[in-house]
């Protein structure tokens, strides 16, 4: 046997402070009416830092700072100058990418291979891409002189902490808005390091404000009357509540919510690449991906062969220390999320689906869940309908393309879908019929700053990325 020796990425590149304040009006400040909470490393349960929790008054300060910056500095600033600040930020992210990647893996539990090779390159690319739009907004297709909206309240999830920050902040700033962003309570650290980067870039005070906290902080922010725009990425449940809370206001809303994507494999698929796509689709980032290919729809006449290949491939997944460069599947982000994954998986077993995981040793401390597949799943099973947001794949079969479409669309979600077949006309036929915002054909989980991302139906509305991503931040 060829055993890989541990290959840990060094933590020394990260300079963690014992505690972090709120980033308001260009400065780190203590909360006035909030408390604090701890951010832990989900791979070890070690406390990483004490984080300020913003109360209503702190949110008020942040929104006021953003308003002032919008009125006095950022709104009136020529696009070409906004662009330069965004380019600066993009460069600083590249320069500090290793530090950011290690910190992301520490705080989130995702493998360093992913934070290093996926998250950070995309974060920098996003700022570069939108930097270039800042002085070209009149050419974006929203009229010759589109105007920003004002102050944007942005609430982001814990699965791609810095990448979601980039998806929110880059287009908002490019379009001329100022922002108050709330990172997830379990993963605030890279956002706070990003705040330092804003200082390093000499970004005018108040253009970016970061308020840390949990649901109450988020609610205070979203419901603040001084906010003109709300952008949220997270669960459909919370998205619905936000949609209700902004009802009847002037606030423009974009939502990027849950999903239960079908990854559809036909009998003429390039099987080895399809298996990679299935693995990438559900085990990338521990399955903490809103567009994860969590339902494998495989044509019945190749189901056995595909499953055999999939299981063989899964046996090579390396689960463990997120900072080990050879780790494929890291830690589950929190105890609460682990509990949810366990609960739904148990429901899968209880409802009669057959559960399988490759043999793998999970660490004693921290939050872990072995890569798991369920076979014999039907549309009626909870694990085929509810978003698990973990490394759990439900396998269903189909007989005809029409049946595949019908099953794929049979969900209130509509974020993404995958198609695997060598037949071009079938890809286009399927792509036309799938009710999903992103369709990956013979690939999966690909992201790019130029490519619009977002859902149909209860997966939300609005698009992030590309020219389309500007629309949510312009007064059109």
């Amino acid at each position: 046997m060829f055993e890989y020796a541990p290959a840990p990425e060094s933590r020394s590149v990260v300079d963690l402070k014992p505690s972090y304040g709120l980033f308001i009006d260009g400065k780190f400040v203590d909360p006035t009416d909030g408390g604090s909470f701890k951010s832990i490393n989900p791979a070890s349960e070690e406390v990483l830092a004490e984080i300020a929790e913003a109360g209503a008054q702190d949110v008020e300060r942040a929104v006021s700072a953003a308003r002032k910056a919008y009125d006095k500095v950022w709104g009136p600033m020529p696009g070409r100058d906004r662009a330069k600040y965004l380019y600066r930020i993009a460069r600083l992210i590249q320069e500090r990418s290793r530090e950011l990647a290690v910190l992301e893996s520490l705080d989130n539990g995702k493998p360093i291979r992913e934070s290093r090779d996926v998250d950070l390159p995309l974060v920098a690319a996003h700022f570069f891409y939108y930097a270039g739009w800042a002085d070209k907004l009149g050419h974006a297709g929203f009229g010759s002189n589109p105007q920003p909206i004002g102050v944007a309240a942005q609430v982001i999830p814990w699965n791609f902490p810095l990448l979601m920050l980039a998806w929110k902040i880059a287009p908002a700033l490019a379009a001329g808005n100022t922002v108050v962003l709330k990172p997830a309570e379990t993963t605030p650290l890279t956002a706070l390091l990003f705040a330092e980067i804003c200082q390093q870039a000499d970004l005018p005070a108040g253009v970016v404000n970061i308020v840390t906290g949990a649901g109450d902080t988020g609610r205070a922010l979203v419901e603040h009357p001084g906010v003109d725009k709300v952008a949220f990425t997270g669960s459909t449940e919370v998205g619905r509540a936000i949609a209700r809370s902004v009802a009847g206001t002037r606030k423009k809303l974009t939502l990027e919510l849950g999903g239960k994507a079908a990854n559809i494999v036909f009998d003429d698929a390039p099987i080895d690449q399809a298996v990679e796509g299935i693995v990438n689709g559900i085990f990338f980032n521990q399955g903490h991906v809103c567009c994860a290919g969590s339902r494998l729809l495989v044509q019945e006449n190749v189901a056995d062969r595909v499953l055999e290949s999939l299981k063989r491939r899964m046996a090579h997944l390396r689960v463990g220390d997120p900072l080990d460069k050879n780790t494929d599947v890291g830690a589950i982000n929190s105890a609460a999320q682990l509990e949810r994954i366990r609960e739904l998986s148990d429901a899968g077993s209880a409802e009669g689906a057959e559960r399988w995981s490759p043999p793998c040793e999970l660490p004693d401390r921290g939050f872990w869940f072995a890569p798991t597949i369920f076979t014999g799943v039907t549309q009626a099973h909870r694990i085929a309908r509810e978003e698990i947001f973990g490394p759990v794949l439900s396998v269903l079969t189909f007989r005809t393309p029409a049946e595949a479409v019908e099953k794929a669309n049979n969900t209130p979600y509509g974020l993404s879908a995958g198609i695997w077949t060598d037949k071009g006309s079938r890809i286009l036929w399927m792509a036309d019929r799938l009710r999903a915002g992103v369709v990956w054909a013979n690939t999966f989980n690909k992201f790019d700053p130029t490519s619009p991302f977002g859902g149909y139906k209860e997966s939300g509305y609005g698009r992030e990325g590309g020219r389309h991503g500007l629309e949510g931040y312009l007064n059109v």
Partner: protein
Amino acid sequence: MSERVAVRKTYKLFIGGKFPRSESGRSYLVQSSNVSLASRKDARDAVVAARAAVKGWAGATAYNRGQILYRAAEMLEGRREQFVALGIPGDEVDAAVDRWVWYAGWADKLAQVYGGANPVAGPYFNISAPEPTGVVAVVAPERPALLGLVSVIAPAIVTGNTVVVAASPSEPLAAVTLAEVLATSDLPGGVVNILTGAITETAPALAAHMDVNAIDLTGVTDATLAGELEVKAAENLKRVLRPAPADHDWTVDPGVTRMTTLLETKTVWHPKGV
């Protein structure tokens, strides 16, 4: 010779290409006519008809949809005097015809303007294209009864959506007459469904309906009701067009927002290799 006794028209609902009375059997007196007072069940039936029409209408070619909308404009032009007889100013009828023609031309252009190739950093073909969101509930503006109505229906259906429209309660005759135009213009039954009656009765049912994909609140003048409808719409995350300001000028270039808000963007990736 005595003067001919006129045959009077019964103003009914327009659902699935047919002109039924309200299932409730109710009507109300407005503009000197008895007009159907639609119920929640009529709204439900209209949504069923609209849903059934989505596949064919969204699946029609953009060229075909453009042709059909243009045909509707022709029919509208031909019935100009009929609308004038209802009290609609001639200028407004003309503007409504022009508005309809303007939107008809968008059918096969919007995907080019609003979609396109995305230059991703990798060996992928990547393209975004707009698609209709599905069934759209529309609260039409109170007035202008015809131009306002055309200005909310055309942008919704030109891209392949189907609509259930709650017509102006105080001036519904233009809406029913427009239904007659649409019924004779090759538009498949169910693409446009028109309910007359009280907004307070039909709109909440439509806003809460889980098989409606979007709601256009343009004609809701009561801010409280608009807020309530938007809250209901949040249940299945309907796309929402908020009410138009009371002083909205319906004669100016409407831009594309009415169309784009009722569209989804689908992005397709495929590797490029040999």
